[in-house]
């Protein structure tokens, strides 16, 4: 419902102006005015000391909402799109099953996985990881990823089985075709959720994601349409429990005459010199401008090798040409959340922080005690990485007996 300012109550104190994430409040003749950029997020309602900002009651949309409610009344259950690579389910699929199981428990419903281009043994694995049912399509055509075929099959399954929630990994594959599915079935999709909960009253899915380049968090709802669709980045959710006695149903999905307007001619695996898979790594050792050059990155590699981690970098180090772009962590690089993140010689610009601040433990090493990286660090060391790192690597090797 529209948000308005009660002019007689507004004192023109301007407190609300800064609170608005959408820049939708402006001053007009010394009173606050809410313009068309308002997203009805209601943040300003709590901020106004006079209670002058209110939500207008209205019944303009109630008939439409009621019709939608009836239309989607029989949507229930949770779908997890289980992505495979080379026929093996990706880890993110198990993580999503963990999240789906938890949500299904709260909603007292069941979990179905959708697996395309893999065989029955992988479907069985998904059952061990928590799926009650797997819709399996083993057509070899689906081994390689094409948006048309994947979007077509998933949309059809959604329309046929009417799930209330659909979860998918925010991977290259998920981020590419899941939006097509959302557009086709006419529903909302929230990208890169960091938390998924069920609202106690409405039973809607509360989808939390970073907004404004990760400077602030937003809770997103999809109240009137079903299914509620969300993508989640790898390693954000915890895997559920693996139970090899789990029983589930495998339903073979028939696909006739799959057609795609795109065709994969070749799939090339590309491993950079330092072999980075930042998304999957438990330990990441990153360097920034303070690494000073390729020499500094050799120290990072040594530590990475000793700890069994991989090397990451800030945008500054990549722009300087010290390390390849595939290592870049941050808003214009990769988002990572390893168990341990070392930030060495990285000052901690917001653009970098948004890519790594959800790491479990952050260890910052920087010469400058005022560097913003220390604000997010679990452990901070003010010092020279050229002194600290070689010593640390040597001691770790001693301890591990390498």
């Amino acid at each position, binding site marked *: 419902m529209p948000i308005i300012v009660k002019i007689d109550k507004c004192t023109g104190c301007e407190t609300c102006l800064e609170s608005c994430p959408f820049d939708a409040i402006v001053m007009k003749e010394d009173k606050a005015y809410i313009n068309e950029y308002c*997203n009805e997020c209601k943040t300003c309602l709590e901020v106004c000391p006079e209670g002058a900002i209110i939500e207008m009651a209205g019944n303009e949309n109630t008939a439409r909402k009621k019709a939608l409610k009836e239309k989607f009344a029989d949507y229930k259950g949770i779908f997890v799109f289980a992505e495979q690579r080379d026929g093996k389910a990706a880890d993110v699929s198990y993580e999503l099953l963990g999240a789906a199981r938890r949500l299904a428990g709260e909603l007292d419903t069941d979990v179905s996985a959708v697996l395309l281009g893999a065989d029955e043994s992988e479907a069985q694995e998904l059952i061990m990881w928590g799926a009650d049912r797997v819709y399996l399509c083993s057509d070899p055509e689906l081994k390689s990823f094409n948006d048309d075929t994947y979007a077509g099959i998933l949309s059809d399954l959604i329309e046929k089985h009417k799930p209330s929630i659909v979860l998918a990994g925010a991977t*290259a*594959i998920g981020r590419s075709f899941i939006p097509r599915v959302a557009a086709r079935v006419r529903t909302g999709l929230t990208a890169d959720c960091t938390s998924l909960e069920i609202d106690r009253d409405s039973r809607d899915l509360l989808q939390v994601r970073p907004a404004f380049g990760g400077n602030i968090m937003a809770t997103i*709802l999809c109240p009137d349409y079903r299914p509620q669709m969300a993508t989640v980045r790898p390693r954000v959710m915890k895997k559920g429990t693996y139970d090899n006695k789990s029983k589930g149903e495998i339903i073979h999905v028939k696909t006739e005459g799959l057609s795609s307007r795109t065709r994969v001619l*070749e799939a*090339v695996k590309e491993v950079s010199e330092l072999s980075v898979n930042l998304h999957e790594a438990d330990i990441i050792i990153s360097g920034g401008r303070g690494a000073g050059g390729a020499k500094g990155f050799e120290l990072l590699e040594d530590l990475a090798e000793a700890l069994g981690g991989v090397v990451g970098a800030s945008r500054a180090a990549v722009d300087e040409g010290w390390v390849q772009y595939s290592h870049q962590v941050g808003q214009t690089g990769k988002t990572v959340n390893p168990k341990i993140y070392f930030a060495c010689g990285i000052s901690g610009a917001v653009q970098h922080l948004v890519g790594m601040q959800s790491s479990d433990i952050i260890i910052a090493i920087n010469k400058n005690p005022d560097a913003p990286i220390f604000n997010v660090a679990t452990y901070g*060391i003010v010092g020279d990485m050229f002194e600290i790192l070689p010593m640390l690597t040597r*001691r770790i090797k001693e301890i591990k007996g390498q």
Partner: protein
Amino acid sequence: MKIVVCIKQVPDTAEIKINPETNTLMREGVPSIINPFDLHALEAAVRLKEQRTVRVTVLTMGPPQAEGALREAISLGADDAVLLSDRAFAGSDTWATSYTLAKAISTIGADIVLCGKQAIDGDTAQVGPETAEFLDIPHISYVRKIESVEDTMIKVQRLMDEGYDVVQSSLPVLLTVVKELNIPRMPSIRGILQSKKCEIRTLGKDDINADENDLGLKGSPTQVKNIFAPESTAEKKMIEGTAEEKVESLLGELKKIKCL
């Protein structure tokens, strides 16, 4: 051949700082820029002009101020520009934005639609693929190289999580691009002159044959429930002492968390 490049004017989020006392965004004086990924999409379109007869139209949806971004795109080599602006579009989520863009692109006509992989303010990467779906054309995401363009066919490299795919598609097609695709050029003198005198075509809701129920806040299935500052729950600890002592303390902490 007609190419439409979709661009978005965004706040330079790298310049946004958080007020540590109030935990609110300090956006005053933050400049507006063309979304960086969109500049690579535009560059790709302008380079295709050098190979074949191509007309490049740059399209944005936004408030009247977004005209500045369109003029900048003209200075970088686009032939003409369309501003999609109407109060009815305000509050659009990715679904409604994509629907509206697709309606506008249908009005303009395109053999190839180019978009940046995502906008740096929202980071959803959804608008490109959703727009392709509304246009009922194929799309390829994360394009890092355009290998060849023919009259009815295109071949590109698509970045994947563990490498890349060589993908072929029929035209028309929509591509979302990553920054490895190219290095955007600087504006030319001729381009700057062009951008000053160029007329910007404005389209509103009545010009694109759209269903009003599918536009703006009303057409958007998702809603922002609330906004809050990211919490930092982790305990923070500065490790003090000589370099040796610092290393030993850190090793102690690493042992505690069973990393060693």
